[in-house]
């Protein structure tokens, strides 16, 4: 009976834990929640890898929120913006690391969001009943890109200044209202302290305020509809399909992905710290090869090339027209390919997706090539 004696304190602790659990459970029905999570199944097949990218995007978003709050402790928008980022980078202990993590995580988040979007596309997960998941996802993508664009200006070094200048050419090229809209966004014809102040408000208040409800709906829809099967699995008869439990199996793998993402971020942020260039100077010439961030490169390049082919407003009009048409097709894809079975509609959608993916990659590479 020695063993039972030595387990006595453990027992006591467990009874206390059970009592606390019981108390909370009576009020929040944790048991029901866990039971539900254990009943929930996630399909398991050779494309399962792509199911993790929404979670990875979410992880980087959480990192953005936390590191962003930390940066907010020392960042000062307005005329002192550059000086405050200089202090964060070179003066405040570990400030460089927090800023570097925020910048790297922003890029990784955009990347993860793109991977997530294309994997959802090729799994045809936009079909009934998941259309709203697709549309909220597109809205979240748009907001993510605006997050990236507005955050890029905030340090106000020369790269930020000129990349924003160049980037604002994209909305400025919108026919009729472009100049007006751009001047309102920029707070005048030039990028000044006023621009930083409004980009800051956009970045830390307006965008999160818009982003969070859409994120909540998006995640709730995933929970409601579950993971979609890719066409190759749909073709299999029911008994041949395999699945794993959402909790704990899928959840554990999901957390494993988060841990992997955290490690990759830590390595990038600490070994390749994000640099701060010289302070923006409106009288200084733009540095050679100035270009926007990689995720705006394709739009930038299209505008540039169309401007070359069709000089004047025609080129801008055609360039903008091309994205708009592309975006509209992208948004209505659930209507184009709505059947559950694969058919010619599904093939069309597949080729649209392939063209979009390869087109974006090729134009981006072309853009970097021409720098």
């Amino acid at each position, binding site marked *: 009976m020695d063993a039972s004696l030595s387990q006595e304190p453990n027992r006591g602790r467990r009874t206390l834990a*059970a009592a606390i659990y019981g108390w909370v459970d009576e009020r929040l029905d944790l*048991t029901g929640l866990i039971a539900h999570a254990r009943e929930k199944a996630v399909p398991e097949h050779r494309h399962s890898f792509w199911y993790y990218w929404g979670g990875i995007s979410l992880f980087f978003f959480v990192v953005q929120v936390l590191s962003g709050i*930390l940066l907010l402790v020392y960042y000062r928008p307005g005329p002192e913006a550059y000086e405050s980022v200089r202090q964060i980078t070179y*003066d405040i202990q*570990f*400030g460089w*690391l*927090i800023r570097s993590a925020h910048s790297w995580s922003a890029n990784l988040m955009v990347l993860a969001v793109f991977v997530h979007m294309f994997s959802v596309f090729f799994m045809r997960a936009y079909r009934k009943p998941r259309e709203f998941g697709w549309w909220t996802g597109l809205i979240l993508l748009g907001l993510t890109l605006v997050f990236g664009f507005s955050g890029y200006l905030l340090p106000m070094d020369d790269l930020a200044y000129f990349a924003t200048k160049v980037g604002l050419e994209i909305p400025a090229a919108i026919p009729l209202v472009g100049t007006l809209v751009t001047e309102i966004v920029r707070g005048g014809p030039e990028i000044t302290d006023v621009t930083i102040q409004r980009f800051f408000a956009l970045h830390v208040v307006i965008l999160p305020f818009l982003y969070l409800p859409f994120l909540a709906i998006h995640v709730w829809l995933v929970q409601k509809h579950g993971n979609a099967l890719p066409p190759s699995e749909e073709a299999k008869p029911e008994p041949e399909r395999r699945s794993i439990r959402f909790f*704990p199996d899928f959840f554990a793998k999901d957390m494993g992905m988060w841990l992997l993402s955290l490690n990759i971020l830590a390595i990038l942020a600490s070994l390749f710290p994000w640099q701060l260039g010289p302070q923006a100077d409106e009288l200084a010439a733009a540095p050679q090869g100035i270009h926007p961030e990689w995720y705006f490169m394709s739009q930038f390049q299209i505008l540039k090339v169309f401007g070359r082919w069709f000089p004047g407003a025609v080129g801008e009009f055609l360039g903008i027209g091309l994205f708009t048409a592309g975006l509209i097709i992208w948004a209505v894809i659930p209507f184009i390919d709505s059947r559950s079975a694969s058919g010619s509609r599904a093939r069309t959608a597949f080729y649209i997706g392939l063209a979009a993916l390869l087109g974006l990659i090729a134009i981006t590479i072309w853009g970097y090539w021409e720098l």
Partner: protein
Amino acid sequence: MINESTIKEIISSQGEDEPEGEDMSRRSFLWMGAGAIGAVYIGAIGYPVYRYLATPAERAAQAAAVTQTTLDGADKLPVNTALMFKFGTKPAMLIRHADGTFSAFNAVCTHLGCTVAYDTAAAKITCACHGGEYDPTSGSNLAGPPPKPLTRFNVEVQDGRVTVARA
């Protein structure tokens, strides 16, 4: 009814009875390993964040560690007036008495930390917050709630410069 065994059934991934003996120790070893790795991550993230947030406090502690300050031209201070200055990070006060001698104090009230003032008419140091009063030469608490005298600094005058130092 919720009791321990139903919870275990729900939580344990196998839904079986508690593993015995070797299984048990292997399991607790794994949990300990996971806990240790978790602690390393928390430390690796928590330490930089702590130092980041603590930077101003650390800088202030360094600034507060100064032992003396030189006040240029303070020898021209009119009699029966006081000069406020910063000693390290805290406000301090240099008083020139009617006889031309100097006294210097930490100007933080020993009651609840308000900054004290020199009352020329009464030739006393007073605190507006709760009516504390101090002696302008010794700094001792004369009236009101202050529990202790003001911290006194040493004053030295040399070639037109007044040097205030920690006593």
